[in-house]
């Protein structure tokens, strides 16, 4: 199970309880966040970055648990496309998460971890908590919001429901709704966690043992969806792992098996299994057009921001057609929108990796 997180994270407690889409109310909500670059005196240079499903606020800082570089260090920093010499960058851990913001591992009013008593949250609830954070930081209007994958969903929700809070909305490798295929993959992950006897109905926090096997399998399945077939073939092919011949057994004979097992195990050291359940659920519930009878354009009727939507040609998780649907809707309400499908070999994960064209578009749009 995830290691205990050091308590010196930067965080605030929201001054008011958070009313959730489910009708429930979360009292005493903490939002952990990180910031980079100086906030201008008039507070006009703030950029809010929304992280992806398993991301966190450590965009451009060494991760306190894994010791690895921040997840977007190639994009955010001094002189980089999102230039922290000019912009004040904020990234907050989503509620339901496990890097300091209130989530299923947090203590409820009775002093025990919420576990599965944590209310089911939505993507809009995640944004709601971060808008409350901005209120408390005194930032009214952001220079930009930026998000990839789930972060892109948060960015779209902000544009739809808090249209005056950002001048620019940059949504990368994302979708306006989770498809049946997206939900299906998430369900495999959740079932893997819940089938692990160590999950114990979610009440594993007291003992030393959590559903690491289940969470690891969930991560392995999800990780495949982040890569492209060509990328996997290129990286691993059918090459064997540390051996000259097949073992005629069930060890990790192939490099790709070894790689996935490693990804799965490494993930359990930094992520809480119940958080994984709650966040994937929020993503599956996500459908921006749902409350408008399926008419996505209506969701953006009050949009005031400039938009930029980016997809990748090898992303089969949130393929270009999903981005085009967003662009189509924005065009229908005459919102200023740019869109580009970039060519990159890495599948969905391209937004995190070395794609120079992405850097140029992000920089150009943010300026």
């Amino acid at each position, binding site marked *: 199970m995830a290691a205990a997180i050091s308590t010196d994270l930067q965080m605030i407690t929201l001054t008011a309880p958070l009313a959730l889409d489910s009708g429930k109310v979360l009292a005493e909500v903490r939002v952990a966040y990180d910031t980079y670059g100086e906030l201008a005196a008039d507070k006009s240079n703030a950029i809010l970055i929304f992280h992806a499903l398993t991301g966190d606020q450590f965009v451009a800082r060494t991760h306190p648990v894994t010791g690895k570089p921040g997840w977007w260090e190639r994009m955010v920093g001094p002189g980089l496309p999102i230039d922290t010499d000019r912009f004040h960058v904020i990234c907050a851990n989503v509620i339901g998460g496990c890097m300091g913001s209130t989530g299923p591992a947090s203590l409820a009013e009775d002093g025990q971890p919420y576990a599965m008593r944590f209310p089911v949250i939505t993507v809009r609830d995640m944004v709601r908590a971060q808008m409350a954070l901005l209120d408390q930081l005194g930032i009214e209007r952001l220079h930009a919001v930026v998000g990839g994958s789930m972060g892109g969903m948060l960015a779209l929700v902000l544009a739809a429901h808090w249209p005056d809070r950002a001048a620019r909305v940059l949504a990368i490798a994302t979708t306006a709704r989770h498809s049946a295929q997206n939900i299906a993959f998430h369900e495999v992950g959740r079932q893997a966690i819940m089938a692990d006897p160590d999950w114990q109905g979610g009440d594993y926090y007291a003992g030393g043992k959590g559903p690491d096997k289940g969470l690891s399998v969930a991560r392995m399945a999800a990780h495949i969806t982040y890569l492209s077939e060509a990328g996997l073939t290129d990286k691993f092919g059918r090459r064997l792992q540390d051996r000259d011949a097949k073992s005629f057994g069930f060890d990790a004979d192939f490099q790709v098996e070894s790689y996935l097992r490693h990804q799965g195990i490494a993930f359990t050291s930094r992520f809480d299994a119940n958080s994984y359940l709650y966040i994937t659920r929020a993503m599956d519930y996500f459908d921006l057009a749902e409350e408008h009878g399926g008419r996505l354009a209506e969701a953006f009727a009050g949009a005031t921001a400039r938009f930029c939507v980016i997809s990748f040609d090898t992303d089969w998780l949130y393929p270009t057609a999903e981005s*085009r649907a967003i*662009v189509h809707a924005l065009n229908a309400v005459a919102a200023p929108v740019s869109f580009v*499908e970039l060519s990159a070999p890495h599948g969905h994960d391209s937004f995190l990796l070395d794609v120079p064209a992405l850097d140029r578009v992000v920089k150009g749009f943010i*300026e």
Partner: protein
Amino acid sequence: MSLRADLAKIAQLVPDGVRVLDIGCGEGELMDVLRRERHVDARGLEIDPELVERCVSRGLSVVQGDADRDLADYPDAAFDVAILSQTLQTAQRPDYMLDQLLRIGRTAFVSFPNFAYWKMRVSLLVLGRMPVTRHLPVSWYETANIHHVTVEDFRLLLAAKGVTVEGCWFFAGGREIGGANANWRAEHAVFRLSR
């Protein structure tokens, strides 16, 4: 930066402050001028991702897409002006594209190279080969221009579709010329159209 003659003409004719869709906007040269000098709300559609990238870098709103397919996604009368410059001859069906143009924009500008320009005729007559010129610089087998059109052909299409010609302008050697014998003398034509 000076615009190509046909684009400069269009820039001059677009009214101030209107909403414009530039189809096949390239690097956004025309949009940039329209935005700065005519204060228009300009949007672009461009098929080449590298050109879209450059447009985004200059702060323009440009969607990467294929005009043959994606114009259908724009609502009716979404723009005051729709511009199709040097793109008609690359369309799968120029007649359908013209319909889309006049559906999306109240007014449309269409600019195209005139294949009946006298140098082309001479080239074809004398050499017996598909002309390769300054404005049509690519050999027949690799050109994107799959529907070569002349000023006369275009007029006949407009007549058949009942499209109103609000104005037309002709260019040769980078300069505007009069309309007399345009089908012989013009390298380029710009038409302003409406329904």
